């Protein structure tokens, strides 16, 4: 038995995906152990795109941070700014005017449209369906143009301000947006048809990477990935923010939990987005765009702000000590919650399915890489800066502790729901 195990170990063939790999647009490192074409084990190492943004917030004032946090993610930039603004406004005890909130929601939904279309292209590309990739990205230009006309930039829209938004929607723009949405709606319907009826494409998506609702719950996945497994998890519905009370959306669910369901959920979510954008355009509340007075120093206190990014729940923790800079900003992006599911789902699948399953969660590594988990057994304790620094020095001097100090490490084994302690255990 022992020798058998030994020979098996000698035959392990590990395929490294990343940090530089054509399947990944951003750096992340996966190791898939394969036998023939079948994956038998998977592990991930993150942290290659760690930029020190959370620490950076502590040396910038509240307004400057808005623009830095917007740059955490290039695709879901607006939602980061929104989460931050809502958190700061909550701390300051003010609320942005209803018109501003509605515009925030509208830009967020436009951003979701662009993100999901981008994802559709990306996923098609992973499946080797270049034509769908090209068409999806071509049509995504429509929403990019809308966003550019509305806010003046294609990527980092900077539409938010603390206490409001910068840009109003004019009547002319509204009709342009309507036109764009008409086109996008028609195209989205077509793509939904393609991903649910193209026989070759279905071979690559149907029944692959199946995650049951129980599994989804246990792995703590969020966003469309969870909703494709039939788990109702949508901050827009659970805890409406911005204008989601006035302009609600219905969460889109699928039960299958496979890759096809993830396509269907994301594409059907687009119709929800189009609908809610149309409703907002038709019933935009009148009034100011921005609060007359937004304090420069924010009252001491703590706030938690949760919003639904295109990839799932985005979580902001903001602490103020009463000065003009934040004391601590903690961001947890949805990709981190979803990453564990990739490791679980790829085991037992073909290597060819791995990129598809990975892209199925719509990963965004740069958003993700702000954390360094220090695991010493099971205890999650608070670490002081000095101690962290010392650990870092020791680590690079080659004295690795028995517990191991590594990048964000997630084990593929059954994972307990993400405990709050894990969040505090992570530091910049």
């Amino acid at each position: 038995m022992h020798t058998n195990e030994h020979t098996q170990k000698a035959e392990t063939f590990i395929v490294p995906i990343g940090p530089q790999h054509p399947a990944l647009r951003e750096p992340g490192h996966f190791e898939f152990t394969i036998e023939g074409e079948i994956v038998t084990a998977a592990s991930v190492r993150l942290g290659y795109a760690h930029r020190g943004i959370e620490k950076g917030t502590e040396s910038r004032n509240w307004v400057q941070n808005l623009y830095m946090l917007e740059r955490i993610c290039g695709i879901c930039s607006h939602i980061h700014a929104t989460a931050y603004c809502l958190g700061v406004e909550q701390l300051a005890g003010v609320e942005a005017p209803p018109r501003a909130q509605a515009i925030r929601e509208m830009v967020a939904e436009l951003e979701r449209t662009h993100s999901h279309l981008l994802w559709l292209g990306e996923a098609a590309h992973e499946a080797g369906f270049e034509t769908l990739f090209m068409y999806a990205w071509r049509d995504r230009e429509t929403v990019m143009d809308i966003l550019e006309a509305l806010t003046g930039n294609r990527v980092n829209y900077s539409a938010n301000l603390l206490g409001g938004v910068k840009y109003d929607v004019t009547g002319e723009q509204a009709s342009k947006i309507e036109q764009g949405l008409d086109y996008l709606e028609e195209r989205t319907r077509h793509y939904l048809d393609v991903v649910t009826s193209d026989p070759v494409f279905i071979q690559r998506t149907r029944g692959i990477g199946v995650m049951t609702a129980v599994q989804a719950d246990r792995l703590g996945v969020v966003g469309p990935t969870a909703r494709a497994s039939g788990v109702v998890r949508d901050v827009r519905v659970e805890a409406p923010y911005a204008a989601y009370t006035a302009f609600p959306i219905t969460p889109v669910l699928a039960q299958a939990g496979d890759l096809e369901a993830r396509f269907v959920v994301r594409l059907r979510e687009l119709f929800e987005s189009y609908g809610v954008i149309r409703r907002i355009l038709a019933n935009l509340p009148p009034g100011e765009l921005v609060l007359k007075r937004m304090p420069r120093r924010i009252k001491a206190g703590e706030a938690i702000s949760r919003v639904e990014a295109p990839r799932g729940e985005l979580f902001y923790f903001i602490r103020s000590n009463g000065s003009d800079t934040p004391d601590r900003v903690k961001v947890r992006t949805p990709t981190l919650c979803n990453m564990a599911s990739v490791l679980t789902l790829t085991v037992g699948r073909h290597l060819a399915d791995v990129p598809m399953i990975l892209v199925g969660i719509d990963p965004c590594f740069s958003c993700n890489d702000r954390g360094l988990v220090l695991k010493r057994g099971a205890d999650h304790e608070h670490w002081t800066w000095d101690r962290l620094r010392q650990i870092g020095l020791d680590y690079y001097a080659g004295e690795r502790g028995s517990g191991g100090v590594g990048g964000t490490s997630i084990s593929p084994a059954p994972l307990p729901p993400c405990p709050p302690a894990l969040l505090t255990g992570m530091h910049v």
Partner: protein
Amino acid sequence: MISDLTTLLFFPGGLSMLLAGMAFTWLDRKLLARLQNRLGPRWFQPLADMVKLLAKEEVVPAGVNRLLFVGLPVVALAGALTAVLYIPLWGLPPAASFPGDLVVTVYLLSLLTLCTGLAGANSGGRFSLLGATRTLTQLFAYEAPFLMALMGPALVAGSWQIALITAGINGRWLLFTQPIGFLVALIGLMGKLEMPPFDAPEAETEIVAGALTEYSGRGLALFYLGRSVEMVLGLTLVAAFYLGGLSNPVAFLLKTLGLLLFIAIVQSLMARLRIDQTVGLWWRYGALLVLLQWLVLWGGRWL
């Protein structure tokens, strides 16, 4: 002697074949781009790629068999260029011909795939190794159906000699009498050239560039050239066998370009097949259907 050399080096083999290969590659890329509503490369792009690759340093990884690493691309291209001699290119009769040259040609065409697989296995990299496995797996998948599909016209003409087969077909469009054979031959050609949806052996999102991951510079250029040449040869062969022969250069161009358009459309319409799906497709459908057609042909002859 001089005319033999010209045949070998310039026309219809050698240089003209390389240029034709690049032209066809460009056309394929351009068509694919236009089908995807893109602009596509300009006409000199494949030439520019070749010049650049040939001028670049060839990095030989540590621990490989150097002779094999450098020699395999040469053998691959040489195989493809040798096959040129037996194929009725440009609407002219083949430069060389002997009984049974169809079988030799098909084997010469397989040399490229074989060399690619060996090159991958020799490179030692993990992606190369996986790519090599997939390349050879795919070879075993499409090769038999492809060969069987080319035998359909041979059965009709009652000969194994390409020149005699084209003569025996005598301008008949076997596309209509043997549609299955035509499709299998054409799609088999796509498998041979590792075009989408049969590009699992070089699926960039999984195994980077497959068997050729470690190749750069000259070696890569030669493999690419070999593949370009094979594309022209394959299209010519299918056109000669199934589209009523190639009696003159105009017919040659029209028929091969028509086939090119067809395979460009097929490429654009499908997602990549997994390697197990490719194998399943060929053996479960391709081989059986061709066999069925064979039986029909045979039966038709005896009845």
